[in-house]
């Protein structure tokens, strides 16, 4: 059974069709790449899956459960984590606090106005572990806004991981970072993909073809190709879109 199943999702913005009958079936443990030119609907698809946008038509299933149209915080609790295309962190929270928010939100009675923050040892252990995983342990007490751009990208991933997702959606995690930092982030994604299902939107086709088990190509809101990296790189229509020939 697919862990993430998108069935015939359509999303209209007024008269504009951003997604048209998009289907996507991601198996547990898969590292799926999504590529396509600007405006193909990649981020819109993520927003529909994560609940930030309600689809005009179609269904989304996560671990067999219909999550279509649920608010983002409920979908998060069902096991979905995501990052955003434009780097978004809480600028005035520290690395540790930012990660702690997600870990805490998964608890039974998460928010207590009278409970002193940090007291909870299983939460703080997990927060420190996540800081280590993304390589920010030394910087855990820095404010997020003081981090380098690449470190902010890593923090974003850690924040998405903090809610302990079964499926992780990464929206252009290496966009705008230096080649060296991008290499570090890619290593991190490969490492993570051994433990969870990841769907990756990536601008760099090379990266996707190198890393992913399976690749879906979107163009003008439709899935135009899907297959292994080899199949995709041989696909005539994909070549036409990317090379303009």
């Amino acid at each position: 059974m697919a862990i993430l199943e998108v069935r015939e999702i359509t999303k209209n913005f007024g008269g504009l069709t951003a997604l048209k009958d998009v289907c996507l079936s991601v198996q547990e443990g898969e590292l799926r790449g999504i590529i396509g030119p600007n405006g193909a609907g990649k981020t819109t698809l993520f927003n529909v899956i994560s609940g930030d946008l309600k689809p005009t038509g179609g269904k989304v299933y996560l671990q067999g459960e219909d999550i279509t149209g649920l608010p983002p915080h409920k979908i998060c609790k069902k096991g979905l984590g995501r990052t955003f295309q434009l780097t978004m962190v809480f600028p005035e929270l520290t690395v540790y606090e930012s990660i702690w928010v997600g870990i805490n939100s998964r608890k039974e009675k998460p928010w207590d106005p009278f409970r002193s923050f940090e007291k909870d040892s299983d939460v703080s252990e997990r927060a420190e572990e996540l800081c280590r995983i993304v390589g920010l342990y030394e910087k855990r007490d820095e404010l997020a806004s003081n981090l380098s751009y690449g470190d902010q990208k890593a923090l974003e991933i850690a924040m998405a991981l903090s809610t302990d997702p079964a499926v992780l959606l990464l929206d252009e995690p290496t966009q705008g970072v230096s080649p060296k930092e991008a290499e570090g982030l890619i290593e991190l994604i490969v490492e993570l993909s051994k433990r969870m299902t990841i769907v990756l939107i990536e601008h760099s086709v090379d990266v996707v073809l190198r890393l992913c088990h399976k690749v879906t190509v979107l163009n003008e809101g439709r899935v135009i190709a899907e297959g292994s990296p080899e199949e995709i790189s041989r696909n005539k229509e994909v070549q036409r879109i990317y090379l303009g020939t």
Partner: protein
Amino acid sequence: MASEVASALLFYLVNGLIWGLIIALIALGLSFIFGVMGIVNMAHGDLYMLGAVFAYWIFSALGNFWLSLLIVPVAIGLLAAPTERLILRPFEGHPAVTMIATAGLSFILQQLVLMTYGGVPKELPMPLQGSFDFLGVAYPLYRLFIAALSLVIIASVWLFLHRTDYGILVRASMQDKEIASAMGINVNTVLVFTFVLGCVLAAVGGVLAAPVTQVFYLMGNDVILLCFIVVIIGGLGSLGGTLVAALVLGGVEGLLAYFLSPTGARAAVFAFMVGVLILRPQGLFGTQRG
């Protein structure tokens, strides 16, 4: 002679600072609501007014001023929560509309109080008698109590925001609602909570001020102006900036009141705000938001 001037000045300064602390409480609520919800609450001054009017009513009915410090926060909370749900939530993301909605709310609250409480300003007796000798100036004990309680409340809000579970959650939601909800936070409940807390802070300011000012259905108008100045000078969303700006403005206005008419002192405060906005549009302590 010189020492008389000095003690008079000191008296005016302390008066101004204490008034500044009350303003800080109210402005903190305003800044808080704006920071989390993006709403400019035009009815904020009227919650201060409601706090004072409730205090008057509670004193008239029960003969005890101190009970209002317990009852008013609960009563205002019960009013504020449905207001957020029913009046403000439908206009989420439309700041201009929420300004109009809260301005309408302001008129409704004022007219309701006019209908029930009446249009004549009333006074409450001092709940604490006696005075405190401070550097040769006899200072009313109750005003010092206002200062102490305001400081305690402001410190508690700070501790709450930085040292408790829920506080971190509120700060996270204040900084980015989209990521907060992607991380499993139900931002809607945070919005209700924030609005209630902001309104309660204003109402407690009203309760504290009631015995040292005239309780009047339009008393909020004066205060909301000062709060806007404080929040703008302090930098929107900067809680520390709000406190410092309130104290500076209260102190300056207090001192100027010795030399100028109250109107002149208020005009000087406005001139100061204009100057700040020309030189630092983001406020003294605000950070530029990209």
